[in-house]
Structure formats: C-alpha cells, structure tokens
C-alpha cells in the first residue's frame, strides 16, 4: 500500500477538480428552484423578463428535427422580443430569455439539462422533442412543479391523462390522432380495402397503428400485411418487398426517418406495386421526401397536415409565411441549417406560448398553467386555416385535429381531400 508521487499529484488534481466543481456551482441549497420566489412570484420571472428553456437533440441522428424544435421557437421569440416583447395578463410586458441545450436524444443528458435549466432558474420548460427524453424528465418536472409544456412529441403519455400529469402537455397531434384520421378516411369510403402497414418499432409506430386500428375496427378495411423497422436500419427494401407481396390497396408507411421514407416510396414502385400511400406529417415534405421519392407515380399520396410549408410556392404570398421566413432567416437559421416541419411547428408553438402569457394574471407557474390550459379556438400562425389550438381537453395535445391533404405533383403542394 504505497503511493508514488504520481498518486499524490493526481490526488491533488482530483481534489482541485472537485473543489472547482463546487465553486463553479457557486450556489447553495437555499437558492434551489421549485418553491416560490421572494415576492410570491415563481422563479424565472421578473417584471420585465421571463426565462424559458428547452433541451432537444442538437447533435446526432435526430438533430435535424431536434434543431428545428429550437430554431422555430427561437425565431418566434426573438422576433417578438425585438418587436417590443410579450404582453402578459398582469399588465407587464416582458422580454423572453430563451436557453437551449443539446441532449443528443439521451435521457440521462435530458435529465441533466432539465436540472441545469431549473437550477439556472427557468420559469418553464417548453417544446422539447423526443419521447424517451421527455419521459425521463416528466416525473422530475412534476416533483419540482416546473411546467414541461407544448412538447414536440406525439406520444400519448404526455397528453392522455393531464390530471395525473398536471405540469405536462403535448403540442403536436398525437401519433394516434394521425393514424385515426387515415382510418376514418378509409372507413368512409365504405368498401373493402386492403392495407399494408410499415411502422417504426417504437411508440411512434405503435400508436400510429393503434389509432388506425381503433378507427377501422369492424369495418371493411383489412390489414393484410405488416412490417416494422428499426430507425437504425440502412434501408427498408426487404420490408417493402415483403409488403409488396400482399399487393394491398393502401400502404400506411409510419416511417419517421427521411431517407428511409424516400426509400420506401422508390422501392415500392420499383417492384411494380402502386398502392395509395399514407404518410405521417413529419415525413411528407414535398421537396425532401415526395419529389425525391417519385411520389407522382402513385395513384394518391395522403398525409395529415396542420402547418404551412414555408418553402411551398403555394404559400409564397401568405403573410404568416413571409413573417416566418423573415424571423427564421434572422434568428433561426444559425440553429437549424435544414428544414423539417418541426421548424414551423415550434414557431407556431411560440405563438401559443404568447397566448398563454397574455392570459397569465399572476407571475406564477400555476397561473401560467391555468392560462395555458384555457386556450381554445386559437388560430396560431403557420397552422393551416381551420386547424386551431385547443388546450382545454385533458386527454389531447394542444393540436388535436389534423386535416388530410393529398399530394398534387403538378403544383408540388397539397390539395384538399374529398374522400378516398
């Protein structure tokens, strides 16, 4: 049991490092978050500012959508800040301080980020993307009574029982809502239809299918083939080959990875299988999915839509889109270099946040949650006409309706659907 000088120095190093960690923290138990601030207000809010935070994947495989959940929100917030700030229900106008962190889709990192943000004194945690990451954060948000709201995940967990989880709300339609919309469209056709399903092997794919099955139960719609995939698969050729053997009328492709979805579209037609296609809202962007995938070859391509595509010529004259593009160029493009629909979703989410602020009568988290849960029939920017935000239901996300649209290869945009 001898120690060499190296051990001594290394030991001293550890000691120094540990002390440094303590000093960096610089705060004592007294300052910890959770409770009320000095004057009855919650942490993270003063008379002229409020701070919110988000943790999303900003590097790694899910960083494309992850960056967009931050960039769109940043664009809305910073544009509004520059425009004077946010009006609050208590009569004050506040600037929003926006902090974002990278969690690489790692739950442990997300928990660490959430704790860091609350430690820095954020008022609310808004818009984070990712099912496992948000699932890990949820119990802590509840325990600390920090709002974890308007999450960019369609998993039901975050929306289906808001009495049990009073501090958590989802923003985008649940995956089940989207699946249900497809099912309803097919049932309405009132004839025998065969369906092949391809779903991601996780809650995204599963709840998509669940929604679809709920809507089609007992109808003439029959699922004749189904396959799953892992997000890490390099191609889905074999799954498509398997499904093509069924020669079903419809392919429900609940695939959330851009290149894989394109691969599905190209592979099916290359096998001479031309079903009608149902695509989820997050992988149906014309420019990056439908055109590269040769979607015009199929009799019809349907997708649930609730937001405007800022790159579509159809919306070039739209005021919302012009405001979005200006704000995004200025404040969002540094964060997300490439477009996914999550960019517009999180931009709309900024407007919902503003609406909640406007209804907030006291500078407290409780008041914020009450205001946030009382928004109905709100037309947020970048949402399609007729798609409104309704947060009053305690088992649905803030956006609970979707409109099915049909790809129009001629214009490169979407057209309304009048039946299957």
């Amino acid at each position, binding site marked *: 049991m001898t120690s060499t000088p190296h051990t001594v120095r290394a030991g001293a190093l550890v000691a120094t490092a540990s002390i440094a960690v303590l000093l960096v923290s610089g705060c004592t138990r007294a300052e910890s978050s959770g409770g009320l601030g000095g004057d009855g207000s919650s942490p993270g809010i003063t008379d002229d500012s409020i701070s919110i935070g988000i943790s999303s994947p900003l590097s790694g495989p899910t*960083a494309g959508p992850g960056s*967009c959940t931050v960039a769109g929100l940043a664009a809305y917030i910073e544009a509004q800040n520059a425009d004077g700030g946010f009006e609050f229900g208590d009569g004050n106008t506040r600037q929003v301080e926006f902090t974002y962190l990278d969690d690489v889709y790692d739950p442990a990192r997300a928990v660490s980020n959430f704790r860091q943000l609350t430690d820095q004194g954020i008022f609310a945690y808004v818009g984070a993307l990712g099912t496992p990451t948000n699932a890990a954060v949820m119990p802590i948000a509840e325990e600390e009574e920090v709002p974890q709201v308007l999450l960019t995940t369609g998993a039901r967990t975050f929306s289906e029982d808001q009495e049990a989880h009073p501090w958590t709300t989802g923003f985008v339609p649940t995956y089940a809502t989207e699946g249900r919309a497809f099912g309803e469209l097919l049932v309405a056709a009132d004839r025998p239809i065969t369906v092949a399903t391809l779903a991601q092997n996780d809650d995204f794919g599963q709840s998509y299918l669940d929604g679809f099955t709920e809507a089609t139960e007992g109808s003439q719609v029959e699922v004749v083939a189904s396959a799953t995939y892992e997000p890490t698969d390099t191609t889905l050729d074999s799954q498509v080959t398997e499904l093509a053997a069924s020669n079903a009328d419809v392919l429900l492709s609940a695939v959330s990875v851009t290149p894989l979805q394109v691969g599905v579209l190209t592979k099916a037609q290359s096998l001479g299988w031309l079903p009608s296609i149902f695509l989820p809202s997050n992988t149906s962007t014309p420019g990056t999915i439908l055109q590269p995938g040769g979607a015009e070859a199929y009799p019809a391509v349907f997708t649930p839509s609730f937001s405007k595509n800022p790159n579509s010529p159809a919306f070039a004259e739209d005021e919302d889109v012009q405001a979005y593009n200006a704000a995004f160029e200025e404040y969002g493009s540094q964060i*997300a270099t490439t477009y996914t629909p999550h960019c517009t979703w999180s931009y709309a989410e900024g407007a919902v946040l503003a609406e909640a602020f406007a209804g907030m009568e006291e500078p407290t988290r409780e008041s914020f949650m009450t205001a946030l849960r009382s928004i109905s029939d709100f037309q947020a920017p970048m949402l399609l006409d007729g798609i409104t935000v309704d947060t009053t239901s305690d088992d649905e996300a803030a956006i609970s309706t979707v409109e099915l649209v049909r790809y129009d290869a001629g214009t490169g945009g979407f057209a309304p659907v009048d039946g299957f």
Partner: protein
Amino acid sequence: MSYFVQVVVDGLSNGAIYAALALAIVLVHRATGLVNFAQGGMAVAATFVAFALTRAGVPVLLALLAAVVFGFVLGALLERGVMRHFERGDPDTAVVATIALLVLLTGASAFFFGYEPQPFPSLFPNRTFEVLGVFVSFRSIGTILVLIAVMVGLQLLFRSTKLGLAMRAVADNPESSALSALPVSRLLMIGWGLAAGLGAVAGVLVAPQLFISPGMLDFVLVYALAAAILGGLDSPVGAVVAAAFIGVAENLAGAYLDVVGDDLKIAVPFVAVMVILVVRPQGLFGRKTTVRV
C-alpha cells in the same frame, strides 16, 4: 421463388452499402494497422464536397472526382497533422484519436450543411429492370460493379505493386520497415489519403440511397466493421463477400424467420459473425498466423 430471389437481391444491394465502407476500412488497416473510426467522418466530409458541387450544377461524375481528390488531401493532412502524433504511442490512444476526429468531422459537416438528411443525385439511372419476376435497380448494379472494380484494384495494389507491398510492410511494423529504407511517414500519409479517397467513392455511391447527412455512415460503419473483420480485415475480397453475406443473412432472417422478425433481424448477422469468429478467429479470408515465441 421470385420472392426469395428478390429478398436475396435486396440483401445484396444492402450488402453493397456495407461493402463500400468495409473496403475503405480494409485499406486503412492494411496501410496503417489501425481501425479508424474517423473513416466514416472523412467519407462524409468528402461526400459533402461532392454534394455542394452538384448543387452548384457540376455533373455527379466530376463532383465524385473532386470529392476523391478532396478526400485524399483531407486524409493525408489528418495523418500528417494529427495521427502522426499518436502513431508511436499506445494504440488505444490512437484509436480514441480517430474517435475524436470522427466527432470533429461530424460537427464540422453539420456546421456547414446541417444534420437533416438531404437528397443526393445518383451516378446511375434511378430506374429498375425486371428479370424473371425479380426487380433490380440500376443503382445497385452500378454500385456493385464499381465495388468489384475497387476490390480488384485494391487486391492488385496490395498483391502486385511495390507501393502496396510497402504500405503493408509499414502497417505491419513501421520501425522495422524504416530499416529497409521505406519512407514510412510518406507511406502512412498516402495510406490515409487513399483510404479517405476511397471513402469518398463509398460515400458518393451510397448517398443517393441513404441521403447525405453528417451521421450518414455512423451505423453503416458498424456493419462495415463487422464485414471487414469477418472478411479477415486484410482481404478486400473477404470484406466484400462478408458484406454480401451480412446483407443477405439479415434480409433472409427478417423475411423467413418469424421468431426473428424485422426488429431482431440485425441480430442474425451479428450472432453469425460472433459464431464464425469464435470458430475461425482469423475471419473467413484471413490468413492463419500462428505466432510463436
């Protein structure tokens, strides 16, 4: 029957993707004796150069050539500026240095092009043809033909040229190679350059299918490593055959073994690789070497 053949054909076209990177791994292993995690990062960086050029209107073939040149220079510079520092030290440190390069290159690619996958134009027509009820894409055929050419080229390089012999000697024992007047540092630079240039070819071949993104090859690298190691690490032919085996085994298992299913089909080639390695540690095509004291 045609379904079975179709599944095999699909497997082969997957295998071609793994093989493209596996060949680059074999090359760098033969040239430097290292397993290089940065391989994928260098390939992606070079492919992004081709991507930027095609977006500016340059034809794909020309963009590919530019990417190969860029890859070669990048690889040689990284060897000269970074890896040389670690070549004489602990091999674990050198491997972690390649991990650092991978992270850095991924971050740099993302800095310029973002993380979201983007479409990449194909060298080959985006069509399929039908033979006896089986559909084959020109892209797969083209990819496989290029890979076979690369494989033969590598085999010739290593077996029949002085440069190849010298590169193998340096990978085996740099210090001793220097004693035979081999210009060790230049050969290592050339080895890294060639591996990164080949990575550019691999990247341009697979990008139309996988879409270009900074992480495009992260998971392919895992398959490619499996293929390279199963093939014996030193054998280009072995790497290609092993990659084809992995692609086909995975697809057949997914299609025919219900217990396995689509979710666990990835386990089949990896379990097979484990079993094969336990039985035959030198890999399918590796030469058996009995080391004596």
